[in-house]
């Protein structure tokens, strides 16, 4: 049996990783149990990557409060974690009087929430800041931005690991029991013991909540599909363009990424299967058609990929979407922090959620600061983003920076090697992709995937048939065509 942990976080998504990282600020033994092979295979990696302003949520809710707090702190966080973040602003475009009224209400709500820098702008101003946007007027949220959701989640996890947290990937929790004031958590056949447990299981929050004995939460999945456009399209989209939102749904929008791609979507379909990420034809057609009303640059030759994500939404008996639930139920599950329905704006709110969870524990016992805690994490220096002077200097220092492996994203061998030897020990193809952006360009790995596969084999001492795409059973090769030398 393993030694006793102070805190075990179930779920290594953006929120779980932020929580783990916040706990490592204190002298605590922290572990994270993640059922997938990496940290952003579900909701954290499957979204629009928008850092929200905080105006879209009912005043007084955790969603509103933590989102505004998260947005406010994001520049400092991005700097600490060395992650791609652009505070580009965003616009909500409208045409009708009704939409104008709705925007005015949204703005008022935003101001009540503490969101700042919200302005109503006319068509002329809209076209000045976002020339391609279609609309008669807009609400401009200057504080909104975009982040690379993969690198962001990975950076939180890596920084947690650097500060002592242990990540157990491929560990799906199947049972939780409590004996003599200690939780025993069974995950992939191993038993972990801990004083505190945090349910940050995302789409699995209902299941884990039930295991803790806190029953009755109805969690539905809201699935959204997306189309990704070529990097060259980004020049026509300086900031995300949204329609005027309804109460429950932000609408199909177009979002620039930190790397110049454009993502189109999402729709929102209620689902009960939280593992099916297929994108149907009619949804792709609908996305393109619908988003073309606000941004007319969606052309099929620019499509490079499609994907979908599922948000866990906690709903009441009438199906009404509820606020984030972050609770401790001492009567049922002492020393357990239960997070339910952490959907959008979870990406923006992750670190404030982490602080909130830690504060709940801090009310119960005195937490001793960890003097060695270092909030800074160094990312992999990206060749593509460097000036030619910087590139020359990097190659001088490390010749592997002169070997371009992925041509579309200009990712070098040095970056791939650093990604293979990442702090979380992930060596799937998608793990390398998320960490370097290799295989994310217009050729989708047509040029580089074989080279990356070969490097993983060599660096990790793995056989071809042991290399995985993303999940444990997602083999990419059956092995050698024939044994060498025959």
């Amino acid at each position, binding site marked *: 049996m393993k030694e006793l942990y102070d805190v075990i976080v179930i779920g290594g998504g953006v929120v779980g990783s932020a929580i783990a990282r916040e706990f490592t600020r204190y002298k605590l033994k922290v572990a994270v149990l993640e059922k997938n092979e990496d940290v952003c295979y579900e909701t954290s990696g499957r979204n629009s990557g928008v850092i929200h302003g905080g105006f879209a949520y009912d005043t007084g809710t955790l969603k509103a409060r933590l989102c505004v707090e998260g947005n406010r702190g994001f520049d400092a966080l991005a700097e600490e974690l060395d992650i791609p973040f652009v505070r580009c602003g965003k616009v909500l475009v409208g045409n009708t009087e009704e939409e104008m009224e709705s925007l005015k209400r949204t703005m008022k709500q935003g101001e009540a929430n503490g969101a700042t820098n919200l302005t109503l702008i006319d068509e002329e101003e809209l076209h000045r800041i976002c020339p391609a946007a279609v609309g008669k007027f807009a609400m401009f949220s200057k504080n909104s931005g975009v982040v690379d959701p993969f690198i962001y989640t990975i950076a939180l996890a890596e920084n947690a690991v650097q500060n002592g947290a242990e990540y157990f990937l491929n560990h799906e929790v199947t049972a939780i029991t409590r004996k003599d004031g200690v939780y025993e958590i069974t995950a992939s056949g191993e038993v972990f013991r801990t004083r505190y447990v945090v349910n940050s299981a995302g789409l699995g929050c209902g299941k884990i909540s039930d295991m803790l004995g806190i029953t009755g939460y109805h969690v539905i999945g809201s699935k959204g599909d997306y*189309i*990704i456009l070529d990097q*060259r399209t980004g020049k026509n989209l300086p900031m995300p363009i949204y329609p005027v939102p309804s109460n429950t749904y932000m609408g199909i929008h177009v979002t620039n990424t930190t790397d110049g791609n454009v993502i189109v979507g999402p729709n929102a379909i209620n689902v009960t299967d939280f*593992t*099916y*990420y*297929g*994108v*149907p*034809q009619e949804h*792709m057609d609908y996305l393109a058609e619908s988003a073309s009303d606000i941004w007319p640059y969606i052309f*099929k*030759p620019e*499509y*490079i*990929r*499609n*994907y979908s994500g599922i948000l866990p939404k906690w709903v009441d008996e009438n199906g009404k979407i509820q606020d984030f639930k972050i609770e401790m139920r001492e009567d049922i599950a002492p020393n357990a922090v239960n997070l339910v329905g952490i959907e959008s704006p979870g990406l923006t709110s992750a670190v404030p959620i982490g602080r909130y969870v830690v504060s709940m524990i801090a009310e119960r016992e005195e937490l001793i600061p960890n003097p060695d805690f270092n909030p800074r994490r160094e990312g992999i220096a990206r*060749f593509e983003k460097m000036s*030619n002077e910087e*590139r*020359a200097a990097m*190659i001088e220092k490390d*010749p*592997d*920076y*002169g*070997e*371009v492996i992925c*041509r*579309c994203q*200009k990712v*070098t061998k040095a970056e791939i090697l650093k990604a293979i030897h990442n702090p979380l020990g992930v060596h799937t*193809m998608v793990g390398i992709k998320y960490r370097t952006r290799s295989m994310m360009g*217009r*050729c*989708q*790995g*047509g*040029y580089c*995937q*074989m080279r990356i*596969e*070969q490097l993983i084999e060599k660096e990790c001492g793995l056989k*071809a048939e042991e290399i995985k*795409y*993303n*999940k*444990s*059973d*997602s*083999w*990419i*090769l*059956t*092995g*050698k*065509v*024939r044994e*060498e030398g025959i």
Partner: protein
Amino acid sequence: MEKRDVIIIGGGPAGLAAALELYNLGIKDVLILEREKMLGGILRQCIHDGFGLTRFGETLSGPEYIARFIKEINEKQIPYLTNTSVIELTPDKKVTAAAPDGLKEYQAKAVILAMGCRERTRGALGIPGERPAGVYTAGVAQAYMNLYNRMPGKEVIILGSGDIGMIMARRMTLEGAHVQAVYEVLPNPSGLPRNIQQCLNDYDIPLHLSHTVTEIHGSSRLEGVTISKVDEKLKPIPGTEEYHACDTLILSVGLIPENELSIDAEVALDPRTRGAVTDAFFQTSQDGIFAAGNVLHVHDLVDFVSLEAEAMARGVAEYLNNDGLPACAISVKAGDGVGHTVPQKIMPGKAVTLSMRVTRRFRDAVLEIRQNGEVIKTRKLKKAIPAEMLNIALKAEEICGEGDLEVLIR
């Protein structure tokens, strides 16, 4: 910054043929930049035969074909750098390349674009469904098998009857995989007839025309695909869906000229070929930047790539010797039955070979070239199919006057 008369981007069939022709024309201050560890381009992985019939009168494998060029490059000591990726090209012909021994910057008098093409992917087609492992483009599967000795899968379905797809159907069969079938969305095959015979018929691999993949299944590794029949507008017909279990889907659904550097250099592209707009000298819209081979338009046979690159090299030599080239003001337009023509601009009194593809099958048809509505040349076509490129040579004296040309099929 190092100065060069000519920088050739890409050491594949187009780049090497151009370098040799430049050498023969007395232009020696040439440098070939190749990102791979050796010269040869995509032919290194094309271990099947069928190359060189037109050029050498014998059938060679891809590596054999290109070895002849590499040998000559070495004999003539034409300079080249391998492991060197061009990362930037400016309109004024500054070339920046990355290599393990440093970042290199060149100022060229002329630049030759010879980067070849890339494969159309699943994402570009927008095939619906999940995104499991096991969906490969044909060229990726070919590289895994022929360059890296790695087997991509065992139970295979192929979408698209492009040549590489059919060649991979045979190749995978020979290595013990079970290739169930090739599905093609069009009512006619995309690849060459000889490949249908030698790669499919000879191995009893069925080819189903007017069918496509309408859903991909599997959350980890591919588990199967849904195949549907399509109507004459290529739309899937509801009710015709059939599920086929498989672990590998190979896509051979088209090639796209790789023009990212060209776009950086503000070279105008033709939306039909997705390659540069070129003139009778193979000069692009940018002064002193030339293009030939698959970066210009996708060819059917490498022999024609070599020929085109040589013709381009003569244009480059003329450009260097005369400090520029005369303007080509006559536009060549693709009329009925013709998808595109290359080059798109020509001039009176300059012989040129027009390359084109037909848009559909023709039998006993006549290709006409008209100027100002007047027929200036005809060619009888016993048979013409989209899979095969047509090359029509126009003599210098056949092009006179200023009117635009139209190429069409009657």
